[in-house]
């Protein structure tokens, strides 16, 4: 006599085994249901997260420019606010790794370009190749899908700086970069150089690699595996799908991004939905390749960390006290190595009088960033204008 499954559970007994055909059919059905659930979750995540966490465009205009090697860059302009004291030089603001313009401009309050525009600056937010509206290369017959920091620094950045100088008639620009946005400027200053950049503000931009966190070290170890499967890491897709669970951080890896206590949940989710982009494996591998900590050109011939000694452009290194992607030690090392006499380093954290300890992204998008970090950066730029 067969016993219904529910009765068997009540009696503490195991239900008799089903026939092979039954089990196979059940497993196939389970698998199909699970696949459908997963698919709908992913699709809803992809489709809904941008709708769930909407953002608006604030830039007055957008220009998409060819780089000459098959890619494009984008410049989003924030003109000086009416009535503000006009400043001498324009400011170019550059996003970090796997990000886009939203890195610096998310909401009315969380927008450093808007902050600078209110202070009278003509501001251009740069999107490097493959990011935001700069877009991907053509699917077929386009340039090689992989690119490196060197491509950013020697092709994209010069195009952006020359375009801004041409439009404004200014002899030079101020450069503000977050994370990789500062690193590309370290490379530009060594590979291109010249007088086109008056000052640099490097926010959470490590001039050398220090894997203090074991979680980060383990993630870096996985890069070769990812590189085997992808030319472009699909970080944007994953981030969009995971936007609803972007805050609070439940996994150690999430703490690489920000200090939860210093991020508004809505900011974290909107940033995950709109501010993340896929990136070439070549860039990631170049940033993580060096085990002695030194950042080098993709062919290994140029040591960009050591080369800072020859840079004479003023640089302001800004570090988050609990930033694990760009630990304070790396920014301090950049300060030590920089050849310029005019330089500054600041660790943004409680021990230096700030309202909270800052991680990597909250340096720009943190709860207190508009009150504490934006004025700090603007003061440096003003002093060099």
């Amino acid at each position, binding site marked *: 006599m067969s016993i219904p499954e529910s009765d068997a559970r009540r009696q503490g007994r195991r239900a008799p085994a089903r026939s092979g055909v039954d089990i196979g059919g059940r497993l196939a059905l389970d698998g199909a249901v699970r696949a459908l659930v997963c698919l709908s979750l992913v699709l809803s995540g992809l489709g809904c997260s941008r709708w769930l966490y909407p953002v608006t465009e604030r830039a007055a205009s957008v220009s998409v420019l060819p780089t000459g090697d098959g890619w494009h860059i984008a410049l989003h302009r924030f003109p000086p606010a009416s009535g503000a004291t006009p400043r001498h030089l324009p400011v170019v603001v550059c996003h970090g790794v796997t990000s886009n313009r939203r890195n610096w401009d998310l909401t009315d309050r969380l927008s450093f370009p808007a902050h600078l525009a209110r202070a009278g600056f003509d501001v251009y937010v740069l999107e490097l190749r493959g990011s935001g509206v700069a877009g991907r290369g053509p699917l077929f017959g386009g340039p090689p899908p992989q690119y490196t920091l060197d491509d950013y620094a020697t092709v994209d950045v010069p195009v952006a700086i020359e375009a801004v100088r041409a439009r404004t008639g200014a002899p030079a620009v101020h450069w503000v970069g977050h994370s990789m946005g500062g690193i590309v400027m370290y490379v530009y200053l060594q590979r291109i150089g010249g007088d086109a950049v008056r000052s640099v503000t490097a926010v959470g931009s490590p001039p050398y690699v*220090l894997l*203090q*966190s*074991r*979680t*980060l070290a383990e993630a870096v170890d996985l890069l070769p595996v990812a590189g085997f499967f992808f030319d472009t890491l699909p970080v944007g897709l994953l981030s969009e799908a995971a936007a609803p669970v972007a805050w609070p*951080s439940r996994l*150690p*890896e999430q*703490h*690489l991004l920000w200090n939860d206590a210093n991020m508004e949940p809505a900011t974290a989710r909107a940033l995950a939905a709109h501010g993340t982009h896929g990136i070439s494996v070549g860039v990631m591998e170049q940033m993580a390749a060096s085990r*002695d*900590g030194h950042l080098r050109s993709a062919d290994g011939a140029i040591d960009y960390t050591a080369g800072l000694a020859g840079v004479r452009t003023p640089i302001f290194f800004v570090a988050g*006290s*609990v930033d*694990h992607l760009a*630990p*304070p*030690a790396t920014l*301090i*090392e950049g*300060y*030590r190595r920089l050849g310029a006499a005019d330089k500054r*380093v600041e*660790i943004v*954290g*409680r*021990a*230096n*009088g700030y309202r909270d*300890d800052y991680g990597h992204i909250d340096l720009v998008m943190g709860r207190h960033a508009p009150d504490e970090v934006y004025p700090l950066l603007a003061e440096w730029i003003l002093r060099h204008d």
Partner: protein
Amino acid sequence: MTEAGRGRGPPRRAALVGLGAALAGCAGGRPRPAARSRQAWGPPDAPTTVALVPTLGFGPTVFDLPGVGGLAPALARAGHRVHALPGDDEAGLVERLRGLRDGGRRLVGIGHGWGGAQILRALAAGAALDALVLIGAPLAFGGEQRAVQALWARRPARWGDLPAPLARRLLTVGLPERVRRPLLDHATAPLAPILDRWQRRAAGRVVPAPDAELDILARFAGPTLCVSSPTDALFPPHVCDPAAFGPPLPRVEHRLVAPVDGVALRYGHLDLVAHPAARSTLDPIFEAWLAEHRAPSGAPQAGLLLESEPVRR
């Protein structure tokens, strides 16, 4: 060395001490430190002897606060013989460490903050240890943190003389008041001379520069565990992690105490040894590392390797 007690006292006694302290607090007075802090824990015949050296201005109580406990009894429970040495006798530290040598038993030094730097200097002065654990211990000195500059400017004789908000900012992130207050009351070691020395070491630098302690660590023949917290306002990772100053040192392991590496709480300088939560989160790290390095390393009573070059950049 004076030994005020062996093994753990009955829980009732600890409870009475805590009750007395609480009553003193209710009466309007500050709880008075015990006349003599306990200085040794654990079985005298344990195979490993651990020497604890406290950070600036603190005494042995930081390792075993009455009614709360601490790192010292936790290590004793793990089977080690534990001695807490004074933090204000750097000149005598070499002799004190020599005095703890007993036959072939392993001697491990654990230094918290300034105490870790003191152990390194003792190694340079001829002390010998089999292994070393540095908890928030500086290898470089500078004045980059404004909270530290404020500490120098005020130059308190003892920690208890600082305004509570500044002391909190410097020492803790989330240490419960029931622990922080009595610890500060027990922190009666002179602080001002150490601050003067620290300030001289910093030498007006904008950023910390690696100093002799890093070279000593590079030359230490035994294994070392460095532990630091990014929310430690006194000695954060950028002055505690040898890799911050150059290639990682071969015998040194650095562990970050932060949520990013699975430690749920954020720890300040004092929290690293005194926070009750450290017993379940940090002590297992220390214990696992000590167990891992329990086997004779082939370099018993390790001193300094003479052939190593300085590693300062």
